[in-house]
Structures are given as C-alpha cells and as structure tokens.
C-alpha cells in the first residue's frame, strides 16, 4: 500500500491557551492517497485554513500531527519542497515584478528554474505581464501568478485553498479544468478547499466536511451523494402536502432558493405513484414529481445544517430589493 500523501493523526489546534482558549481544530483524522483530488469543505471559521497551515508548518499543532509523504514537516521541513501551495489568496511583494516574485518564491523553495517559470507563465496565461509590478495586477492575475508560484518546484502535492477567489466565471471554469489536468494529466495529488461546492463536486474524488473544528463526514463523493434516493414534487399547498405525506415518508422543503412550492421526499422512484395517489386523495394539487440526484451543495447544507458557524441571514422585509 502506497504511503498516503497526507495523513493527519489527531491534529488539533487551540488558540489562546491562557485566556479564553478556542478549539479551532479538534483531533482530526484523514488520509489523502496519491493522485486523488481531495475536497476539504466547511463553512467560514470551520478550521480549514488552520488545518492547511498546520500541514505546511506555518502553525504549530497543539496536539497530534500531520504527515506529508509519511514525514512530519516539523522534523523534516524540506519534505514541503514537494508541496506547492496557494493559501487564502495569492500574496506577493507588491513592489516586485511578477517575474521577480517567481524568482523569490523559487529560490525560497530550493532553487529557481527559469525555463519552468516561463512554461508556467504560459500555462497560467500571464506571458507579457511578468514584467509588470504585482501591485498593478488584478486579483485574478495575482491568483494566476499564485498558481504558477505554487507549481514552480514541480510539486507532487498541490494545496489550493480557495483558488477561485476573485476570479470571473471564465477564470473559474479554466481553474476547474486546470485542477482536473493537474490530477489526471500530470498525476499530481490535489488538496482543495472552495466555497463553490459545484466546482468541488465536479473536480474532487473524495471530500471531508469540517465544522467547528471536527470532521463531520468523509468519503468518496459518489458514495456520499448516492446514500439516499429522493423525489422532488411541486405541489399546490406545501403544508397540506407535508401533512399528507409525513406519516409515511420523511419530507422537507427544497433547499433551492425561490422554489417555495417544492418538496423533497426521501423515497425511491418506485414510491412516486403512491405519493401522487396520497396527495390527490388529500386534495393536494400535484404539478410535477421526479427523482432528483442530490448535489454536494444540498448534502453540505444537510450535514452542516443549522449547526453552521456562519451567522444566519435574516429574511428581508417585504418589498425590499435583495442585493447579493
């Protein structure tokens, strides 16, 4: 069995040990195997970035350890030369040109390979901009330069923390393709965090969901999303429909915004006729009913639920315009 690329054993981080200690990461265990694209998900403040920072030796673990390629980076920091990372947005020396920033990062990580840097600039679409000072770069350009910097030392493991931050839709699409290429074309292992769960669903093989410092679920995406069959029904009266069905089936509102008359029923496709019959018997209008495949976003919300660390958003007063 191959050595896991990442393996955490009871990894824990407590901030402020003396005054009001805060448990940011709580004894987490997970393994990332070679060649996997591993999604690491969680709401803001769940402990994702802290975990990554401990893996990269930027933060000291309060307990437990994170092994990278079977080695503890605290004892053998040079193992991290096999890792490329982009943590919480790309940051550079603003007074240096893009090219000089790559030189600094390359030399800080074992040596600068000029030919590879040129290839990477082409790869991330920054040829021509490398002579411009980074302070003049857009967020998207910085993010692209960050990707190039992360890949400079031809790493076996690429850690991408919110890689699509600040990117436009076409950039996000390119990034999705890029992550796939990293894993399937170039054989890299990718450890990815993102708020764009549809992106994670399309790119990752395996995910872990972390909330309040604990991993609440971990597994292959296919297995997690196919655990339960569901039907979605559009009905005349949601309350009447719920009352009619909840004796036999588990029923919930749709989690999709603006779909107020849609109901999710935990039932198989074969149950659809019985459900329709029951609704019609109870004088509930049925407009449609269809089996649905749960998305990672639905699954994430179901797992995190109201226990999320994010503050809840109050409903807007009637007549107010909703701004994103």
């Amino acid at each position, binding site marked *: 069995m191959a050595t896991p690329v990442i393996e955490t054993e009871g990894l824990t981080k407590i901030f402020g040990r003396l005054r009001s200690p805060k448990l940011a990461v709580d004894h987490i265990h997970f393994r990332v195997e070679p060649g996997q694209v591993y999604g690491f998900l969680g709401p803001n403040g769940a402990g994702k970035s802290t975990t990554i*920072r401990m893996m990269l030796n930027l933060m000291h673990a309060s307990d437990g350890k994170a092994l990278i390629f079977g080695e503890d980076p605290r004892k053998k920091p040079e*193992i991290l030369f096999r890792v490329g*990372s982009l943590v919480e947005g790309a*940051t550079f020396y603003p*007074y*240096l040109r893009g090219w000089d920033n790559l030189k600094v990062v390359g030399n*800080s990580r074992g040596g600068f390979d000029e030919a590879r840097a040129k290839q990477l600039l082409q790869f991330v679409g920054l040829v021509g901009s490398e002579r411009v000072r980074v302070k003049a770069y857009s967020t998207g350009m910085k993010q692209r330069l960050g990707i190039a910097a992360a890949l400079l030392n031809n790493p076996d493991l690429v850690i991408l923390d919110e890689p699509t931050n600040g990117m436009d839709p076409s950039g996000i699409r390119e990034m999705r393709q890029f992550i796939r290429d990293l894993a399937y074309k170039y054989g890299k292992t990718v450890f990815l965090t993102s708020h764009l769960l549809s992106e994670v669903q399309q790119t990752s093989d395996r995910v872990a969901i972390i909330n309040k410092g604990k991993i609440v679920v971990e597994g292959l995406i296919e297995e997690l999303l196919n655990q339960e069959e569901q039907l979605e029904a559009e009905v005349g009266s949601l309350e009447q429909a719920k009352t009619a069905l909840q004796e036999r089936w588990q029923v919930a509102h749709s989690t999709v915004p603006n779909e107020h008359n849609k109901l999710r029923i935990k039932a198989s496709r074969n149950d659809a006729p019985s459900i329709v019959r029951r609704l019609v018997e109870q004088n509930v209008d049925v407009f449609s009913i269809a089996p649905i495949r749960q998305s990672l976003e639905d699954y994430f919300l179901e797992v995190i639920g109201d226990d999320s660390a994010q503050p809840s958003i109050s409903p807007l007063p009637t007549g107010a315009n909703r701004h994103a």
Partner: protein
Amino acid sequence: MLNLFRAEWKKTTGNRLLVGCTVWIFPAFGCAAVMLFSIILLASGEARQEFIADPPRWDDIGVGVWGIANFPISRLFLISFAATLFAGEYQYQTLKSVLPGNQRLQLIVTKFVTMTAFIVMAFIAMIVILVAGFGIVCLIFGADYPPSLTGSSVGEFLSDLLLNASITFASTLIFAGIAALVSILTRSILFGVMASVFLALLESLGLIFGLVIIAAITRIESVTDLYLLTPTYNSANILQWVNENAPSPPIVEGRGTLGLWESVAVLGFWVILMVGLSVFSFQRQDIQ
C-alpha cells in the same frame, strides 16, 4: 541557504524606496558632504586658507564614518530598514509562500545576514566616497592629505577601521534585534520602528538622566551604575580602552567603570539576547 540569501537579496534590492531612503542615504550623505564642503571652499577664501593650513586626515575620515551609525538620527534609518525587512513579510503576508520547506532559523539568519550585508556595503561606499572625495578636494585646492600611504599607515587604518566597524556593528545589531523582535511580535513595521527608536533614544539620552534623578531622590548613588550595562556605554568604553587605554569616565564622579573585556562581554550579551529573542519568537510563532 544560498538560495534563501538570493531570495532575500532580491526582495531587498527590489524595495528601492526602502533601501534608497534607509541605506543608500548614507553614501548619498557622503556625496552631499563632499559637494557642500567644496562649495564652501570655493566661496570662502578664509575657509580655503584654513583648509590648506590644517588639512583633514584620510584615516580619520575613514574610521570616523562608523561613528555616524551611532548617532540617534542614523539609528532611526537603520532601525527602519531592519523593521521593514522583518515586518514586511507580515505586511505583505508572504511568509506562507516562502516559509514551507525551510527551517525558520535559516530564514531569520538570512534576514540578519542580508541586513548586515546592506549596512556594511552602504558604509563602505560612504567611506570610499568621503575618503576619495576629500582627496580630490585636497588635490584641487593644493592641500596635503596626510598620512602618506605606507604599509604601516594603511595597516593601522585597516585595524582601526575593523575595530570601529565591529563595535558600531554590535551596537547596531542590538537595535536591529529589538526592531526585529518588535516587528515579529506586532507584525507591524510602524510598531517595530517606533518601539526600537524609543528604546534607542531612551538608552542613549533618557536613561542617564533618569538614573541620576532616581539616585538623587533615593540617595542611592549605586543606581547610576546600571548605566554601565547599556550598549551605548559599553561601545564607547571599548573604544576608549582601545584608543586611550583607559575607561570612559563614569556619569557620576567617583562611581565605578568597566574593564575592556567586561564591556566586550556586556555588549556580546546584548547582541546574543536581542538576536536570540527574535529568533526564539519567530520559531514559536504561528503564521496567520
């Protein structure tokens, strides 16, 4: 380690505003001094006559340059340079890109080495500009430029230069260490500069008055002896021992002084303490 030094060099030379305003200002000051002096000599016949009658010594100019680093105003520039070198990484949040894979000790030592290299380069450039510049001025105005260049005069000059440079540098390193420590702890260039300048001024100007006042109020004269533990006193004391073979006079008549090696030990202790504390803090720190 060499690659880390290359990276550090690039970061530092790339920050032209910082290096220009805090390091290259010293050779620029040297150029300005030579030009100003030439203008005065051109404008005033009296000054010209005095200059020819009592020409400067090139060895005094060269050795005296290191004394400039001990002026409070010069320390301000050097402290700003050190603070920016250390706190800049926090301000630009770049440690997360350059730290993984490296030992923290190597990274911080590289920063101290780079800082040292820049300061040494700046002061050597200043020495060359001032010594050569005043040589040209002497040549133009027909003045002597003693002492004559012989093996012994050059040898003596180099040994004086090395000694003064070492003592000045130890003292600079102490305040650079304070700047580094405060910058690491507060992650702020401004705090690093302010705290170090405050301590530098307190140590070189305020402490002596404070101790004298405390001694007068408490009627315990030995309180003033605490001044013997400061970097400023000990660097001055070492120079006094070497040049005059006698200690620096005490701040209160009749109080004790320190011997040469005692001062060397105190100065060494401060260097190790300040650099050591900044290394220790950086080793233990969580990088956000």
